[in-house]
Structure formats: C-alpha cells, structure tokens
C-alpha cells in the first residue's frame, strides 16, 4: 500500500491490492473546479466509503471511475484515473468497456420501465447474449446475488417499477451484477430507503465485497463505519473545490482521526 495515501493505516487490517487509483485528479465543470488534486488508492475486494459534507464532490469523484462525467458538457478532468493500472481517460480506451467493468448504482432507484426479468437481462442483451436459457440463468444468478430472488421469483414478468423502493434498488444492483463487473460504484444507494431495506443493502455489500470492489458514497457515518473497510473523507476548500482530507482503514479513521477537520466532522461538529 502507498503509505502517503493511507497515513492512518495502524496495521490492524490488511488491505488488498489497489484496484482503482486516482492520481492528482482535478475535475472542472466549465470554470468551476469541483475536485482538486485528489490522490487515492481503492483496494480490491473491499468496501471503500466516501464521506463528507454536501457539495464537496463525492458524487463527482465517484463518477470519474466509470466516466459518467463525460455525459456532462464542458467537463474537464486532469490527472490520472487508473483501473488495474491502466489510465481510463486515455484516448484509446473504450468507454463502453470501462462501464461494463465498473458498474454503478444510483441514489434514486432507477429501474427501466420494463419487466423485472428484462431489467436484469438488459445489460447482457446489449452485450450480445440472445439465448433465452442463458439469459434466464444470468437473471436468476444476479437476482440471487442481490438477495432479491426469493421475493421476485414469481413476479419476473411484472414491471420493475411495481416493486417497493428497497426491492427496486436491489433490482438495480442485480442489473449491474448481471454484466459481471469488477467494480460497483454506489452513490448514496440507501438514501431513499427505510431502515430495514437499508440493512438489507448493507448486508448485501458485505457479501458482495468478497468478489467485487465496492465504493460507496454515504452521508450516514454509522453506515460508513458498519460496511466499509476503508474510508475517505472529503471536504471543500474556500473556493468550494473538493479535496481529500484523510483516508485510511475505517476503524482507524473513526477512532483516531489524524486531522482536526475529520474529527470535527465525524463527531458531528459541522456538516
């Protein structure tokens, strides 16, 4: 592990290889700088939580990893964003391939207006799988992985939008799992859900992280403490550009923060 990046690694937990790395990354929306010089390593097969006050650029940072910010006109990224050591912002990189490997779950559940089955089969179909049996297998596997199968196995033909909010969010997770990504980005995936549904998603994250690299943005400090192995704390500077204040193993960061601002934030003194 890069010692500069995880200054608080107190040796209590062993971190895996780096899966994603941002190196001196800045992001601009037009003239406005949303992120300033962020360097952070994201460990493989672990949950990394990103916390920080509203508007500090957490979502913007997350969307760097599947190049979702590309969709917004006038954005500019500098620095390096690497997936398995390859800079995904290089010219010859296929964005579609990046997005296949780096899936995303959004803040508000956004199932497609089609059946549960078709929601999950959407990705595989777009990637050329036509065989009905194969699709059925993928759909079942993904729904099981997302801990949704038992609840929807008799409703595969029902519209995805007819499910409850928590089920919809797990459907969206299944939809991402169906394309077998390596990384799953989650932007406040529980903020529209009740506590029970939230717990289900958290359990799910803990299970999934044995196979997937997960990054979750959350406003809920307890959630970050419960689910994540590593936590990164973002803050904004005077010009509202987001910076990384501190990152490290979750237990260390919450019990023994190195920076005063981190301590103030996690003890609820502001934000």
């Amino acid at each position: 592990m890069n010692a500069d990046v995880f200054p608080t690694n107190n040796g209590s937990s062993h971190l895996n290889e780096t899966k994603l790395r941002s190196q001196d990354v800045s992001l601009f929306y037009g003239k406005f700088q949303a992120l300033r010089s962020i360097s952070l390593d994201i460990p493989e097969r672990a949950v990394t939580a990103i916390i920080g006050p509203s508007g500090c650029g957490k979502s913007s940072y997350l969307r760097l990893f599947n190049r979702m910010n590309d969709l917004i006109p006038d954005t500019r990224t500098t620095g390096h964003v690497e997936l398995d050591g390859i800079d995904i912002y290089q010219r010859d990189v296929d964005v579609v391939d990046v997005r296949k490997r780096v899936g995303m779950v959004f803040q508000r559940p956004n199932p497609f207006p089609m059946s549960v089955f078709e929601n999950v089969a959407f990705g595989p179909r777009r990637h050329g799988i036509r065989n009905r049996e194969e699709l059925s297998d993928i759909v079942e596997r993904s729904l099981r992985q997302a801990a949704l199968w038992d609840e929807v196995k008799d409703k595969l033909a029902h519209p995805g939008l007819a499910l409850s909010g928590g089920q919809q969010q797990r459907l969206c997770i299944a939809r991402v799992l169906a394309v077998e990504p390596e990384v799953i980005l989650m932007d406040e995936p529980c903020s529209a859900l009740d506590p029970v549904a939230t717990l289900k998603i958290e359990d799910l994250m803990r299970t999934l992280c044995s196979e997937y690299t997960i990054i979750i943005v959350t406003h809920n400090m307890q959630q970050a403490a419960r689910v994540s192995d590593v936590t990164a704390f973002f803050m904004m500077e005077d010009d509202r550009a987001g910076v990384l204040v501190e990152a490290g193993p979750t237990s260390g960061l919450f019990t023994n923060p190195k920076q005063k601002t981190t301590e103030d934030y996690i003890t609820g003194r502001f934000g």
Partner: protein
Amino acid sequence: MNMVRRRITQRLAFILLAATTLVVVTPVLFIIIYMAIEGAPALSWEFLISAPRMAGKEGGIFPAIIGTFYLMIGTIVFALPVGVLAGIYLTEYATDNWLTRTINLAILNLAGVPSIVFGLFGLGIFVMLFQFGMSLLAASLTLACQALAMTITTSREAILAVPRELREGSLAVGATRWQTIRHIVLPQSLSGIVTGAVLAMSRAAGETAPILVVGAAFLVPGLPTSPLDRFMALPYHLYTAAAHVPGMPKSIMWGTALVLLAVVLSFNLIAIIIRLRVRRRRYS
C-alpha cells in the same frame, strides 16, 4: 369584512374566467353547429363514396377524401423519419455550438413561414428541379417540409422528457449511446413522437395554399394510381367549389367542409387520446 371581500374577489375571478372560456368556446361551437346544419342535407353515403359529377355540383367527394388521405400518408412518410432523426441528433449528439443554435433558430422560423411560400418552394424544387411534375409526390414532399418544424420539435421534446436517470442506468451497464437511444430513449418517447406526427398529419390535411401550386386539381378522372399522378384534395376542392363554380349548391360546399373538419378533428382527437393515455400511465 375581510372574509366577505375575499369571497367577492373569488366570485369575480370565477365569473371572469368562466366568461373568457365562453368567449373562446362559443365561436368554435357556433362554427361546428352552423356547418352541421348547413351541410347535413348533403351528407349521405352516396356523397362520401361517389365521384363528383357536373363540375362537382352533383355527385360526391370520394376522390377528394382519398386524395387527402394519400397526402396525409405521404406527408408523414417523409416528415416523421426526418423529424425523429433530427430530434435524436439535436438532443443526443449535437453539442451546444453555433451550428446547433442556428439549426434551432431555423426550425423555429420554419414554423413561421407562410404556407404559400412552401408551395412556391415545392414548385421550384420538387415539381421543376426534380421533375416530379404536378403530382401527389411533389405535394407530399412540399407538405412534409412544412410539417418538419412540428415533427422535429415534438420529437425533440419527447426525447428530452426521458429522465436522465434512465439513460445513465443504461450507460452504466455498458450499453452504447445508440443502444441506449434504441432501447430506452425511443420506446419512452414514442407516444410523444406519435402525437406530434398525428397533429402534423391533421395540419397537412387542412392545407390549401401549398398544394394549390404543386399538383392538386379540382377534377381528376379516376383516383391517383401512382405517386406521379395529379390528385384531388378536400380543402382545395372546397376552395374551388366555393370560389370558382357558379351555381354550386350551398349544401355541397358545407358538406365538404364538414367532412374536412371531421377528418382534422378526429386526428386531433387521436392525438389527445394518445397523450392522455400516456399521462395516465406515467402517473399511476
């Protein structure tokens, strides 16, 4: 005291609004009722399915109905694909630069060009330059040019109304931009696009000036058998019958007008029904 005044204000506002509505609705109702009374005597099965005789003073208006029907089809066959493609391009691919802004301005202005100007344009381009002659084809293309403003605008609005979350959800599982358009955006905006198309057709059905110079004829023996044939159309038939045929029975004129109005209104009604059904689906 205060409450009394508030109640009076409420009352007044209500009366004012009701009166305004009445002012708007009355002429429409009046026209329809008047036409129905005047045209009813001419309406018969015979009138609808037979050809005109004696310079239209007897017989029916069947060829004009068919001609108008062909025109509507022809218009939409050309205007819809171009409208949808342009709508997709403008919303999904074009970036906000001077070219896009110019195109948008052009579309806005297209809607404001007087219809006779489209007619002259069609005469110059389709009839003469492309040598389609005075024909159904030339007229359809001319009306399609005029309808473009509407099909592009409605397509674009329908496409823009598709929530960003759905597009992002699709792209986030590695779908390409075109796959996202094809499987998410278009299905979601289809009803809006169709509504626009139906309205464009109903407008094409009512146009007189543009087709006047590119191929409509008052009397054509037989129905058009090829796109290069001349044709009859309801609005043009009405215009000529009213203005240029001495001794034309009033009932035939009003009957023709009634049929034209029925065609246009029923298409508008279809558009309204599609829109309502979509809205109900969206909010239930």
